[in-house]
């Protein structure tokens, strides 16, 4: 039997993404976001998560997709080594169970920032589910942040 795993899925229109369900802390409706001036473009702002201040990452920006309005974005809060971080996404999907048999590494034709952050693709019956590498998504951002002062 092929190993199965559960993915929390969401949409960054027109794509369909997934994150391993055990990394996801919770999913929230659109929150009041406080923008952070002078911050990296992919930082959507700050949200108040029951008294804890959490950085929201504009995932569309991360992936080089055109921006959508942050006010309507859903939050996928993931646990990281540095505490909780929220990803801003367009729409939340179901938790789906996938099997390793349907997994493939990113296709060669996939280019640009998306390829860097994608672990692979599951071939579902009616669409493709892209698995996001959350650690890489955050690291890429941090590296950019470190580079910034030097280029200023």
């Amino acid at each position, binding site marked *: 039997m092929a190993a199965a795993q559960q993915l929390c899925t969401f949409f960054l229109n027109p794509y369909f993404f997934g994150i391993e369900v055990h990394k996801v802390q919770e999913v929230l409706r659109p929150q*009041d976001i*406080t*923008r*952070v*001036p*002078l*911050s*990296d473009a992919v*930082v959507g*702002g*700050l*949200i*108040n998560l029951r*008294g*804890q*201040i*959490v*950085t929201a*990452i504009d995932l569309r920006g991360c992936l080089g997709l055109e921006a959508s309005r942050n006010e309507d974005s859903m939050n996928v809060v993931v646990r990281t080594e*540095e*505490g909780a*971080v929220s990803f801003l996404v367009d729409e939340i999907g179901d938790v789906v169970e996938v099997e390793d048999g349907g997994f493939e590494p990113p296709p060669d034709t996939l280019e640009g920032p998306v390829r860097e952050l994608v672990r692979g693709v599951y071939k579902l019956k009616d669409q493709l589910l892209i698995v996001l590498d959350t650690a890489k998504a*955050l690291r890429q*951002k*941090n590296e950019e*942040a*470190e580079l*910034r*002062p030097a280029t200023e």
Partner: protein
Amino acid sequence: MGELDEIIKEFLVESNEGLDQVDCDLVALEKQPDDKELIARIFRAVHTLKGTSGILGFPLLESVTHAGESLLSRIRDGRLPMTPAIASALLSLIDFSRRAIQRVESNGSDSGEDGSSLVEQLRSLTGVSPSIGASADVDLYSGQPETHRLGEILVEDGHLSQQAVHEALAQQQSGDSRKIGEILVGTGTVVPKAVVQALGTQADVRSASSASTIRVDVAMLDRVMNLVGELVLARNRTVQFAATSADAGFLSTVQSLNLITAELQEGVMKMRMLAIGNVWNKLPRLVRDMAQACGKQVRIEVDGSETELDKTIIEAIKDPLTHIVRNAIDHGIESPEERRNAGKPVEGVISLRAFHEGGYVNLNISDDGGGIDVERVKAKALARGLMSSEQLARASEREILPLVFVPGFSTAEKVTNISGRGVGMDVVKTNIEKIGGTVDIHSKVGQGTSLQIKIPLTLAIVPALVVTSHGERFAIPQVSLVELVRLDATSGSKQIENVRGAEVYRLRGNLLPLVRLDRQLGVEDRSATDDNLQIVVLQADGRQFGLLVDEINDTEEIVVKPLGKHLKNGACFAGATTMGDGRVALILDVRGLAQEAHVVSENQRAMHGESLSAVANKEDRQQWLLFKAGANARMAMPLSSVQRLEEIRKSDVERSDNQDVVQYRGQIMPLVNVAESFRLEQATSSDPLEVIVHAHRGQSVGFVVSEVLDVVDQTVVPELSGGRAMLGTAVIQQRVTDIVDIDQLAEMALKAAAQPSAALIGA
């Protein structure tokens, strides 16, 4: 965790505390060798350590402390005088014990170091053979309960001799069932009153050590503190919500919630407070050792060691304080010969003072040493390219001294193993500023140096001013706040003046550099007007600047939360907080903001320096606007007479009544060509024209110059009396410069316009 582990843990904590105290007491004892109370306290601490380490099975610790105890008991009984050699030996005993305790903590055993030489040293100082020393000790304590026996207290109080107690004890052991106090009173060796008093002391000591305090894990305290922080925020929210309600019952409930929360907050903060003495206690020992190593004589004086501070802050200032004291001994205090030659007492004094003021704790560390030679700092600053010679010549002492905080800056001629490497003072400053404090330095050559440190009582909850800029709220910690200025709604923009691209505001005659918060944060809305702006006057690094914001909301207690790692790059923010309505607001880092703002405009930084010196020397200094008129004439006018600097396109210049005019802010403003007025050689005319706008009797007059050069700040003494409209000539920036009498010039220009044919300055 087993019960034994618990006991050992407690032993470690208690022993460390005890040793810190002994450290202090020993140094004090050196100064006052006859202080019986000090000796008794040291003796008790060492005795306790010996007893406990014996019970818990740390033989090495037991053997060295035993030797120490014997030595101490002889000193206590007056059989041995206190000497520096004994003090040193006892201090090394303390150090040895500390190391042993550290080993117990890390690997559960005190072994790992040879204590025999230390024991030998202590015994030889005791001056008796080991067996006698030990037996004297046993004699006094065998079969007795813990310390603070009645007899001991009576001896300490000076009512009894050791001998009498021994006799009474012997009597008790040989069958007398009465209490020791009764025996002593019975034999008439002591008056009953003294015994009652001693019993009181005994009870005090007992209760103080057991019932009135408990030990609490710091992590637990932190957790409670965090929760209270959350509660404060929830309270803020409830109070805000209650404002919309008319239910009297609810309102009074909110009111009491409000009060209780405030009290709880205060209580929890107090729980975390530690006396600054906890840090200072370590200093006498440090001073003693350092002074000996440097061959100097230094005394430390402390005042206000009961001043309380939050634990985290105590931790944070420990190293900076130590460093400052080290520096003071190594560089500040001179050698005894130098001091004698300078007519000062041979012994140098470092004094520490702590006191509360306005929600902050002020620390004052001063020495009476050689002071900092400003000239040497200047030379060093020049060599390192920190300031130009011109800047240095202009800068006041107050501006020069803080240069010692620049990384890598050391004026010490020789590098010692203690200090002088140039790392240090910058670390001190950074650490203090990290916790929201400020450092100020004053120094007088030959008289000493003093450092003023201002630190907040606590880090967790700070009062802040909430402002709005471009629709976003920002919190500004009140420590940096100086005052608020509301710009008149109708003439808001006119009060903001412009000097070479840098916006300034005249605050009681001094120019205050302005920073637009929205522009600084890159969220400026260019369509917005300058109406209804507010100036928040802030202070950072001893400099004042005005922050332009849209709205000033309120002051609020905020709970500072750090920003996530992803946002560490912004120098402008110190953290974030949640507001009453549940939204997040960013906390501005005033210092970072000021620094960023300087980076943005080179000009502004120059302005900044200027206005500062102007403040420092306002009695005899004035700011001058330097400009070029015609092809090569350098002229200056007082900056205070300049309303604005404008660039006007030639195509906008119109002619009216034989006078060049321009429409300016709904007025017709005459233009006066300065070069023409003074009949100077004309420069090739530029487009747009550089115009200095001056208000003359309510009428704006524009002076056309060929170039605006600079703003300088200096004392100008006109040397030659000039012609008309001329105050004289002075040397500014090493160049001969004409000082224009701007009012006379304006007068003449307007008159000339009325009499078209006459040349301006003819006769």
